[in-house]
């Protein structure tokens, strides 16, 4: 039932003194748009706590785009922590938006960011707390239209029973199209069914209820989606793609939170997309092509953003910032401006070569904390399988360069459970760490432990195969085998200056299952939520049993689902929602992976035939000349 739009902060306020971190619920941040006159109202939700959701650049971009559109207002909401949601339910207070403290169930459109798979039960919880029917099919005519989009939308099937529409690809233009379509249709008195039909005719908008799931011998057990007859919905919905990042608003993040948030700094998107072609990386495949924001625009926008927000740190954000063809130019200019005002510039990760270290050097000024590299796999053979185009020499040169520049702590990211991985690949991780440590001791002096401060930390994630990657057909490594290899890694290390940490294999099983399942998987999500699962991305809250039991009750073994491999020719549950990368290319890449053959980056050499540019009518947009490692 659509609730009345009215300010209900007075119902929330008495609860603020009784919960942890009341600043999560305050609103009125510097830069928040308080004027919310509408008359058409959208609420964007990141279904996690405020401090996790507020730094999300995607929501900031959509918030600005919607609020800039004539007659449309956009507010935000986050999922209250369990202490607050319990009190709200006890006192009959529904989930409220931040800006106007109106019930989320009073909005015209409610949008969710699909930031990762483990957000699933939080979306159920958010809808339930808002008093909105969890299943789209149970909603009334005048209920809000519930939409979703974001990096994890490529296999959205296990979640789509909750959504009226899913937006694929770059959101800044399509979300305004969606809002206008719903607004106009409502104004004409169109039925909910008619509104959804109209949405399905917009480029890059997937309306799940207009598709049937067919399971047959040519599919996996989860089937594939086909448009219902007579709906006119497209067989394949392709993503929206902004041709040029330079044409978008560079200063997206205008809001300054009161509480400490996970990335508490001004962030600017310096490029979108990455064509390095790492075969495990979903973002690398789904955000193509590469579009750089020109250096002058970045520099100007950082200056404007810092003045507007008062932040003392800015982050140059992207999938691979040091690949920006004008990276050095940008950093030099920003450091020059920042030096006098105590402003820090940071980049999220370093390229694994000397250029990466030079760039890290340029951003850090006098600061020399830890430096992070991601070799991802222990041996050259396995790095070739995953197309991580770095060599042992690259890593050693980069490490030497970093130690010589004054760094003492090195962090190395790896994955475990990659296709074709053997014990030898695992043992090689420690060998590499030992070599890096040796280089550090050689450069910094071989003194007794603790004196030179040289150390190496290895962080090992469990590889989860994702759709629209060359590894999408692969089954995940069994949980017991992951644990055996983790133990193998631990026992292979004897040096106290090498620290090893690894991810929880239980969480990876659930993430793997959610990445593989089709629409029928939603019943598992709902069952897990009924079993009390919330905030699954928080290790303190995650309940493996809650998920496993939910699967069992429906006759599913979630570990079996996660570890199942798919036939290369099978129709896949996500074939109808495409980022533009062709299946032929992914199959080719899979075969090259098995053969250990690498594929170059098309922004540094020539086209590698992924299919994105011709399918979407776009092209790489490189501002200068790319620096080959």
């Amino acid at each position: 039932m659509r609730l009345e739009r009215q300010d209900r902060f007075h119902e929330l306020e008495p609860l603020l003194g009784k919960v942890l971190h009341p600043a999560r619920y305050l609103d009125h941040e510097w830069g928040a748009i308080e004027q919310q006159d509408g008359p058409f109202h959208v609420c964007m939700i990141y279904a996690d706590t405020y401090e996790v959701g507020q730094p999300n650049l995607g929501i900031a971009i959509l918030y600005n785009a919607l609020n800039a559109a004539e007659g449309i207002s956009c507010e935000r909401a986050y999922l209250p922590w369990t202490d607050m949601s319990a009190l709200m339910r006890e006192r009959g207070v529904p989930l409220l938006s931040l800006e106007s403290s109106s019930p989320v169930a009073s909005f015209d459109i409610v949008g969710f960011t699909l930031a990762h798979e483990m957000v699933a039960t939080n979306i159920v919880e958010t809808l339930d707390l808002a008093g909105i029917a969890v299943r789209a099919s149970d909603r009334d005519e005048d209920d809000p239209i519930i939409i979703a989009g974001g990096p994890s939308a490529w296999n959205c099937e296990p979640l789509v029973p909750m959504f009226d529409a899913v937006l694929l690809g770059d959101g800044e233009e399509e979300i305004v199209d969606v809002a206008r379509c719903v607004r106009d249709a409502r104004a004409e008195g169109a039925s909910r069914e008619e509104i959804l039909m109209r949405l399905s005719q917009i480029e890059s908008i997937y309306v799940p209820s207009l598709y049937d799931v067919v399971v047959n011998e040519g599919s996996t057990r989860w089937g594939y989606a086909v448009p219902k007859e007579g709906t006119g919905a497209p067989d394949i919905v392709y993503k929206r793609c902004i041709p040029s990042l330079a044409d978008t608003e560079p200063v997206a993040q205008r809001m300054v939170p009161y509480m400490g948030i996970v990335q508490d700094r001004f962030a600017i998107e310096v490029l979108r997309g990455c064509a390095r072609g790492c075969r495990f990386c979903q973002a690398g495949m789904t955000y193509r092509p590469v579009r750089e924001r020109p250096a002058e625009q970045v520099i100007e926008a950082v200056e404007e953003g810092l003045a507007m927000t008062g932040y003392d740190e800015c982050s140059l954000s992207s999938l691979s910032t040091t690949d920006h063809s004008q990276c050095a130019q940008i950093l030099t200019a920003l450091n020059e401006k920042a030096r006098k005002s105590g402003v820090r510039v940071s980049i999220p990760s370093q390229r694994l070569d000397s250029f990466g270290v030079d760039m890290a050097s340029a951003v850090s000024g006098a600061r020399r904390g830890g430096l992070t590299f991601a070799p991802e796999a222990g041996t050259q053979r396995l790095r070739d399988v995953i197309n991580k185009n770095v060599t042992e020499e690259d890593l050693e040169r980069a490490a030497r360069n970093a130690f010589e520049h004054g760094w003492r702590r090195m962090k190395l990211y790896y994955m475990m459970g990659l296709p074709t991985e053997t014990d030898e690949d695992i043992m090689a991780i420690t060998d590499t760490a030992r070599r890096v440590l040796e280089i550090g001791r050689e450069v910094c002096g071989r003194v007794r432990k603790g004196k030179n401060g040289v150390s190496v930390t290895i962080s090992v994630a469990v590889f989860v195969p994702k759709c629209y990657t060359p590894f999408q057909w692969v089954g995940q490594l069994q949980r017991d085998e992951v644990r055996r290899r983790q133990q193998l890694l631990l026992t292979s290390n004897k040096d106290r200056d090498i620290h090893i940490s690894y991810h929880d294999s239980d969480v990876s099983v659930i993430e793997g299952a959610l990445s593989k399942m089709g629409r029928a998987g939603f019943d598992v999500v709902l069952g897990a939520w009924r079993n009390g699962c919330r905030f699954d991305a928080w290790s303190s809250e995650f309940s493996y049993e809650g998920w496993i039991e939910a699967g069992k009750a429906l006759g599913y073994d979630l570990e079996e689902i996660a570890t199942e491999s798919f036939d290369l020719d099978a129709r896949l549950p996500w074939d109808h929602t495409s980022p533009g990368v062709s299946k032929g290319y992914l199959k080719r890449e899979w075969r090259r992976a098995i053969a250990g053959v690498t594929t170059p980056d098309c922004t540094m050499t020539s086209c590698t035939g992924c299919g994105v540019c011709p399918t979407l009518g776009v092209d790489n947009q490189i501002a200068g000349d790319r620096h080959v490692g």
Partner: protein
Amino acid sequence: MSGKPPIGRPDLNRLRVMFRKDGRLAYLGHLEVINTIERSVRRAKLPFSVGNGFAQRMRIQFSQALPVGAASRAEYVDVYLTDRIDAKEAFERFAESSPSALAPVDAAYVQSRMPALEAWLTRSLWQVRLLGTGDDFSASHLDESLEALRGVGHIDFMRGDKPRTIGLDTTLVSWDVADGATEGGFSAIDMRLETRSSNLGALRPAVLMEAAFKRGELGGSVLDSLRVERMGQWHEGEDGSLIDPMAAELRI
């Protein structure tokens, strides 16, 4: 976090800003207030001084932490500026760059050779509204309970999961209580409370009230919530006189 006091740096200008904290922002914690004010200073483009330390922090000092949920009419911050811009102009720029619920009330340059605000401001006046239920929930019972507590001389309480003790001999200066008009179905008590802090600690109104309501005098009552507002802060001189942090004799 704020920088260390720039002792021996008479070249810097110590701009003292009095500000309020009210409305929703009463629920900000001290660290959140510090971050917000520092960002307001940056947005105002005040010529703030940056420390020489590793972290390059702004040179800024705050008065004592206000509890989460407490409003205030009189919080103070000293910002050290490299240029002496007109205090009125600094005030206006600061006001334009601040959230309205953390807005400045006054600003003036003060003597640079004075102790840091946090240690120097030792006296606070609080206005507290208590909402609760029960037959014993009254100003007279609260008064009796506070008298008895003063007799005990200290309060044992928990901060998070850590046990703490605060002495009342010096920290609890005086109080006045009166029954207030009922609010939202709750009975109300209004209290004016004066406290004194030292390097041994500061007495928080919520800690005092929690202890008072644990005692027998208020046994037949339930405290539902507190509304706390700091009305003023002063330095207490050796002769017991109270010095206003914005007093004319401190301004330069």
